[in-house]
């Protein structure tokens, strides 16, 4: 600090919350008495705030964000091999094989669209290597686990209120299109279904017609979007999504 006024670096340190210990007392005392420096600090704070707003200039498109998210989700090099698949899930395995051929093994590299990203997420839940964070059929266990992890809340019906032969088996926190999303895992008969619960509207980016034997189903309620994916028949997946949507 100069004898008369604060140096530009010191004014910057004030607005950045970076005053040194020796300045923590002297600088506020100076500001209490020096109108010119106090005005400079106010102006510097305004400049910092405006710079922050002006600098947030380049938002990635949905497709770019989906591609980057897919890269962030890549397994470490040692995991970039064919994942083990439970033998009882031969149907899913066959579908994975078809997908691997159809998309050139894209699910092990990058997804080019959000629907591929969601399908990848679902397929990942079918492997032994990726058990969910919450393994529970109790909604009273699953729902509280998300508290503090998501910027929204959602409801899960009681087991008895779910469609016939449908059960909640677990849940996980994931990211779809760069946004935090609740992933609810169900079984419908012997098929697995993933339901992505989020605040964003991703449906316009998803090919709802499904892919390679997998179906998508969409519900909206309570400000949330519920997107289901499974290889079970589409009517039963629709019934689950309708059931969950009605609970919001």
């Amino acid at each position, binding site marked *: 600090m100069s004898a008369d006024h604060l140096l530009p670096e010191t004014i910057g340190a004030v607005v*950045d919350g970076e005053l040194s210990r020796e300045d923590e007392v002297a600088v506020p005392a100076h500001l209490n008495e020096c109108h010119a420096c106090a005005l400079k600090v*106010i102006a510097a704070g305004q*400049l910092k705030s405006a710079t922050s707003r002006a600098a947030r200039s*380049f938002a990635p498109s949905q497709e770019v964000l989906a*591609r980057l998210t897919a890269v962030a989700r*890549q397994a470490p090099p040692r995991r970039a091999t064919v994942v083990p698949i439970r033998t009882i899930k031969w149907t899913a395995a066959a579908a994975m094989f078809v997908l691997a051929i159809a998309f050139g093994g894209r699910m092990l590299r990058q997804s080019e669209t959000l629907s591929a990203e969601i399908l990848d997420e679902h397929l990942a839940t079918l492997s032994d290597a990726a058990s969910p964070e919450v393994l529970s059929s109790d909604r009273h266990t699953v729902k509280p686990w998300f508290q503090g992890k998501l910027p929204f809340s959602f409801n899960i019906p009681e087991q008895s209120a779910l469609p016939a032969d449908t059960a909640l088996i677990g849940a996980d926190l994931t990211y779809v299109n760069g946004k935090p999303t609740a992933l609810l895992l169900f079984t419908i008969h012997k098929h697995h279904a993933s339901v992505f619960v989020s605040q964003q509207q991703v449906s316009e980016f998803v090919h709802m017609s499904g892919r390679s034997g997998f179906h998508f189903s969409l519900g909206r309620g309570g400000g949330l979007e519920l997107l289901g994916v499974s290889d079970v028949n589409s009517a039963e997946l629709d019934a689950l999504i309708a059931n969950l949507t009605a609970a919001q």
Partner: protein
Amino acid sequence: MGSHAREAKEFQELAVPLLTSLYNHAQWLARDPVEAEDLVQETLTKALRAFNSFEPGTNFKAWIFRILRNTFLTSRTAIANARTVYLEDHPDVLEVAESGLTPEAEVIKLNDLAALRTALEQLAPHLREVILLCDLEELKYREIAAVLDVPIGTVMSRLARARQNLRQILKSKSGGSL
């Protein structure tokens, strides 16, 4: 879940929320959307490979922004600018000048975000970089110093210079009337 699966999941939870920030910063660095996406993809790949060197409890954002910057420095765009000498890093040679703007006039001018963005574009890259890391990404001085691999004093002098230059550019845009 195995250790590698946990590691991948932890990386995902830390990295995905930063993708928009990384992309924005990459585009400010590269000034090209395609190169920005390539930079972020390469950054993520490198960061994932080196994730076991990340120290839990430290700032992941500072860590991955450092990787982004180092990745950029090896790009063609950065190499083309590599010979630039920054006088601002030698305060004994160049002093920070007053902008001539009164603080009140600055506040009025800052309502024009488009003008401020243009001013940011006109800043020297090394000044723009430091002000983005501080004001937008809200990194601490010591974290910025680590990202840029410079002393904290250089961070402070560059910040002062960047802010002063922004004011001067805004003043020139207003025809010197402020």
